[in-house]
């Protein structure tokens, strides 16, 4: 895509006498200073978290504060691994987020396809249900979901979080997959069906491979959201050995300051997967998000 502004900039540059310095000055104020400001605002808090997590217990609370540790150490990380439930928390979060993604994939691959390619009775009703469900306040669902899960015997089980996360993420996922499918020409599966494929065979062999980037982006969106979720994780799971990272982290903010080094280390480890996943698929994710986004 041609950027309008770059076209304009080039024209202005061509119209003016060649003075590279002058053009750079203009861009300094319109581009580089704001970019530097936004980068600093985004990165400095993360930098401070990571640097603090590398300080030993003596240095962490030393005054004046050090912007780079004199003796960087991984002590907080090794202590967190051996002295806290970090390993357990990590596994629980992986199970909740991973399980959610597997179920989501199974349901959104076919559900999104139905919404993209078929006009069936009740389709607009389904659309309305999915739109409304995305606007439902989670805190309103708290009591009903708790009571429902208690009746079903799901409270304090590994499956509880998977079930509620799938329910909360399904509308967005199906709608996003629908828009990815809709961008693929229908002749693709028509050709495959002429060659003897069934409709579903065409979906899995021909259409899905083309829609794979969209599927990956939507799945990772689901992973990040369930990895980060707090409200239902607090409410539906109370036994410590089933808790997820956000719940464990939040309870650590109440603990003694001597434990803060470990809390910061765990926060870094909780942050890492989200940031890495986001970075790897940012391009697709932002495209998909703006295509069918309702959730923040």
């Amino acid at each position: 895509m041609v950027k309008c502004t770059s076209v304009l900039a080039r024209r202005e540059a061509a119209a003016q006498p060649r003075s590279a310095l002058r053009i750079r000055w203009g861009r300094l104020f319109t581009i580089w200073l704001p970019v530097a400001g936004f980068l600093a605002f985004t990165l400095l808090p993360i930098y401070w978290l990571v640097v603090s997590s590398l300080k030993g217990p003596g240095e962490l609370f030393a005054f004046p504060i050090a912007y780079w540790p004199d003796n960087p150490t991984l002590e907080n990380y090794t202590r967190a691994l051996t002295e806290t439930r970090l390993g357990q928390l990590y596994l629980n979060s992986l199970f909740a987020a991973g399980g959610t993604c597997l179920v989501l994939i199974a349901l959104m691959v076919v559900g999104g396809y139905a919404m993209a390619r078929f006009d069936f009775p009740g389709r607009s009703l389904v659309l309305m249900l999915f739109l409304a469900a995305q606007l439902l306040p989670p805190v309103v669902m708290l009591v009903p979901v708790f009571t429902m899960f208690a009746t079903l015997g799901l409270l304090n089980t590994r499956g509880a979080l998977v079930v509620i996360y799938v329910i909360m993420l399904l509308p967005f996922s199906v709608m996003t997959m629908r828009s990815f499918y809709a961008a693929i020409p229908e002749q693709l599966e028509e050709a495959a069906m002429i060659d003897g494929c069934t409709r579903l065979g065409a979906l899995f062999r021909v259409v899905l491979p083309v829609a794979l980037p969209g599927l990956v982006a939507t799945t990772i969106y689901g992973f990040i959201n369930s990895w980060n979720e707090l409200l239902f994780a607090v409410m539906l799971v109370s036994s410590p050995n089933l808790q997820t990272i956000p719940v464990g982290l939040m309870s650590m903010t109440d603990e003694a300051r001597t434990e803060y080094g470990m809390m910061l280390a765990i926060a870094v480890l909780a942050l890492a997967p989200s940031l890495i996943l986001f970075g790897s698929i940012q391009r697709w994710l932002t495209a998909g998000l703006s295509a069918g986004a309702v959730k923040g």
Partner: protein
Amino acid sequence: MRRHALPWALIAPAVVLVGAGAIYPIAYVIWLSGYDYQPYRGGLMVWVGAGNLARVIADETFWHSLRVSAIWVGGSVIPQFMLGLGMALVLNESFRGRGLVRTIILAPWAVSGVVTGIIWLWVFDGTIGVVNDLLLRAGVVDFPVAWGIHEETTWLMLLLANAWRGAPFFAIVLLAALQSIEPELYEAAHIDGASATQRFRHVTLPLILDAVVVSTLLRALWTFNFIDLILTMTRGGPIDATKTLPIYIFDVAYQRGEFGYAAALSVALCMVLVAFSAAWWQLRRLGGR
């Protein structure tokens, strides 16, 4: 009829799950709001009819939490929108390293509320926080500020943390809107002698207005409901100063175990949200004329 069997079979599991997980809770909340129900204390359901709603109307904490919610939503969405618009305008320019800059600037969107809370609590720490250190060095303050115990400084901390995490959402949506504008429109305006400000006001703004209205409404609703950050940073304190309505409902349900009253408060919350959305939509129609 048979040709409709396939799409329905494909979508049915999702419809059943979403229906059970969305419609049932709404119906249940409305039904339960007529009962006094405290499952941890005997768990008897006592029909109180409109008694719970009357209690909501007489509940000072409810009205207080609504005012707090208004500060929380307004103080979050307005700065986040301005920051996000700034980010989108800059990221819409072409410059070296734009891809990397875009990834970094948008990244806080993927950070959880809890980790965001921990990061900013640490930055604003009362004794060894960066903010205090910088202010002391610059001579702005003589003693470290205890950010978390005053109402105003708590809000500053909370809203700044939320802006950090929330501005990328606006940047993402507005950037997409900006990139869908035809370059020819700018060239035409340029040839007609429009200044940069005029081009923004008369070309850019009208064309992204729909994205602005929709994204601010969604963000407002979402911020209203968002409690992770407040739970991590302040738990609604100091002395209820940051207790939004969802935090209050969470307290009533989770800490006090009053499910019936929490349901009644939830019904009130839904009414507030519907009224707010309707008002916002009306405002947009008036503005569009």
